[in-house]
């Protein structure tokens, strides 16, 4: 069984199992799984508005997935996407309301601000990992909460004690009149192109540049990389910075596209954690991230239809997504046994 095949089988089987478990949960709870999944389907494809909103939902998922996947490729676990996203969201919103510039300057400015904010937020755990070998998991989780409180506090400051920055200037907006017209006024915005461009960028960096070559090598084998003359520390930090930048961009999507403002939040958006699911399912490859984002983005949005049409709480989809992650994590057992068989062959 080739590695390629396993890489595809494990996620596929996990998704099927996840949906199955979801059906069982629905049954056990007295709901009709068929009606449930039908409602889910309609929520995604039912009409132009639904399709528009679904694609809009997929947009930040693409970037969050890229963020996690990119870090994974360098052997790092970035659970800080939630926080990096929030600071990106704020940065973009702030630039959006604080300046009045022609669009071809204002919009890129806001987007870059978001990427920089996310990158800075990723830099700290990266630095700690490289220099002090501090595990990035705990640090990024803590940074998430710090980000939540920080952005809330900043929004309060910016809005003079209120809880909303106010709508950004149109010159920084990703809103699309064109999309609005064809999707019955869904919030689908131009950000989808940016997200797809980023997928291309990730692919380019990893597959075409020496930086990508180094990042992958360091992620796979620090020792051989060190012997090959690579600067392991620099690469670790770089990976977290790029990963953070992608997450910050996800925040920009929400700020400049979906909502057009930043508001005080009572909790995380969930996009960051779902980004982990996207990356895992997509086996950390750019193409896989597209599939993962499409799947989870659709599920997340389509779920909103389930209470209306089938009386089922939206959380059923969160359960399904969590089960899928769980199975993907356990699916590595197959890979493990494969590797073990290979190792035995080589040791002789």
């Amino acid at each position, binding site marked *: 069984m080739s*590695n390629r095949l396993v890489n595809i089988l494990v996620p596929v089987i996990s998704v099927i199992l996840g949906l199955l478990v979801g059906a069982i949960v629905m049954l056990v709870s007295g709901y009709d799984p068929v009606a449930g999944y039908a409602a889910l389907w309609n929520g995604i494809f039912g009409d132009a508005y639904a399709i528009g909103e679904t694609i809009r939902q997929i947009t930040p998922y693409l970037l969050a997935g890229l963020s996690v996947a990119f870090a994974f490729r360098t052997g790092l676990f970035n659970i800080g996407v939630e926080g990096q996203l929030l600071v990106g969201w704020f940065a973009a919103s702030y630039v959006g309301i604080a300046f009045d510039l022609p669009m071809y300057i204002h919009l890129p400015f806001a987007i870059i601000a978001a990427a920089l904010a996310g990158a800075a937020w990723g830099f700290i755990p990266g630095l700690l990992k490289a220099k002090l070998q501090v595990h990035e998991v705990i640090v990024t989780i803590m940074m998430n909460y710090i980000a939540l409180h920080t952005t809330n506090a900043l929004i309060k400051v910016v809005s003079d004690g209120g809880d909303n920055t106010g709508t950004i200037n149109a010159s920084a907006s990703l809103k699309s009149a064109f999309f609005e017209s064809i999707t019955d006024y869904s919030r689908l915005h131009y950000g989808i192109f940016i997200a797809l461009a980023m997928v291309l960028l990730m692919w380019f960096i990893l597959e*075409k*540049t*020496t*930086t*990508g*070559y*180094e990042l*992958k*090598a360091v992620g*796979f*084998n620090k*020792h*051989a*990389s*060190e*012997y*090959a*003359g690579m600067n392991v520390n620099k690469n670790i930090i770089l990976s977290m910075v790029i990963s953070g930048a992608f997450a910050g961009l996800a925040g920009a999507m929400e700020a400049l596209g979906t909502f057009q403002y930043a508001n005080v939040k009572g909790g995380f958006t969930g996009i960051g954690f779902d980004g982990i699911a996207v990356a895992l399912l997509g086996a950390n490859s750019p193409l896989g991230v597209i599939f993962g984002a499409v799947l989870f983005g659709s599920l997340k949005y389509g779920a909103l239809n389930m209470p209306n049409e089938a009386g089922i709480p939206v959380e059923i989809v969160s359960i399904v997504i969590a089960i899928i992650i769980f199975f993907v994590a356990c699916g590595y057992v197959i890979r493990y046994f494969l*590797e073990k068989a*290979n190792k*035995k*062959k*080589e*040791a*002789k």
Partner: protein
Amino acid sequence: MDYIIEMLGIRKEFGTFVANDNITLQLKKGEIHALLGENGAGKSTLMNVLFGLYQPEAGEIKVKGKTVKVTDPNVANDLGIGMVHQHFMLVENFTVTENIILGNELTKAGIVNIKDAAKKIQKLSEMYGLNVDPNAKIEDISVGMQQRVEILKTLYRGADILIFDEPTASLTPQEINELIQIMKRLIQEGKSIILITHKLKEIMDVSDRVTVIRKGEGIGTVVTAETNPNELASLMVGRQVEFKTVKSEANPTDDTLVIKDLVVTDYRGIDKVKGLNLTVRKGEILGIAGIDGNGQSELIEAITGLRKSKSGSVTINGINVTNKKPRKITESGVGHIPQDRHKHGLVLDFSIGHNIALQTYYQDPISKNGIMNYSKVSELAQKIINDFDVRTQGEHTPARALSGGNQQKAIIGREVIRDPELLIAALPTRGLDVGAIEFIHQRLIEQRDNGKAVLLLSFELDEVMNVSDRIAVIYDGQIIDTLLPKETSEQELGLLMAGQKVNSNISTQGETTHVE
């Protein structure tokens, strides 16, 4: 015969590899029985079978005359067999007492009774002259004392038969003396000991009988008092007829690699290379012979920049490369076939093609301005695959999937094609089949014929003798002698490797160890 342990006709296989082939070992009660053999001969495997960590494919084990099946270490413990591991099984931040009683704790009303346990251990320690502090933390005590804790573990569990696996590998000469005294004391108290080692001096000092293993086969058992290091060396090394590598005379010229008074410590801060001097010239292959653990690894790591040296110098073609970064050293014209090809040599998850680019990916034409030119990588990979006979389906195959021999050929190709002035080959044929071995030897000789300097590190005596133009023997962190292959013999090399110069005792660090 009063045998307390008998291992009869033991056969142990790992896949197609036969580690032990019909080996018989008989331990008399109250004796110290040495098990002698080179690296990879199968000594540890045999003992792991006795200790229950491995199950034999064929053969019989008898303890005190009764046939037994030792299915796991607990059974071995119950039978009175204890093992003092080469790599200690100690929890660093526990005390000595805690480590010894783990799994078998003395309790009083549910609480671990450390006080009484410590007292028991203190008594045992005194009884056997072990001098161990029951309340010390493992991370604070010396390696010698740690080993004595391992010994105490076996005694605490009532072991009558103790297996020592290469016990002196990490000890100072002083600690080795102490250990020898302890072993004699143990025998006095009625224990029986199997000593796994390759150090001839210790065998002569302390053992009663010696069983020799070579390449998985039992060669025979001799009484120590009736033999001598020469005979043991020849039994250990064997008189095999290997094909002589065809090569012309060497014509060495200028010095390429010059090492002066190099001192390198290992990760624990212990000196492993102790003021070493070595020169390799253009157009010659210098082979370093020695038994693992005498500083070879640290030496190679220091030369290639993977480890810092404490003092001394390394120059290549006149350029001082001491403590420079690996890339700088590589760019000074060094090629390196690393000892651990999976750790330092390859990124196993990369394709073999991408691995071939590891040293040159940042240079023109492989990349320009930060953009990789993977078609150039393919070209290079294809060339190496062809020229170096790397059997693979293509350069996209993951390195992991290639056999060891082909992985090694790829590494050699990668290094050689850069035309290095100095090629360092560390254990280049480890784990490879005969065909690959011959191929690699040819490549090394080719380099030498092209006027390059080659430094060969090997544990295989025949390899060193066949391939090298000069042989340097490393023992205890220094080069104790340099010889020409045609002026020496395997016996003499075997003796040198074990620290014995003909007609004199080699002393380590200037002190002579006394034989009792």
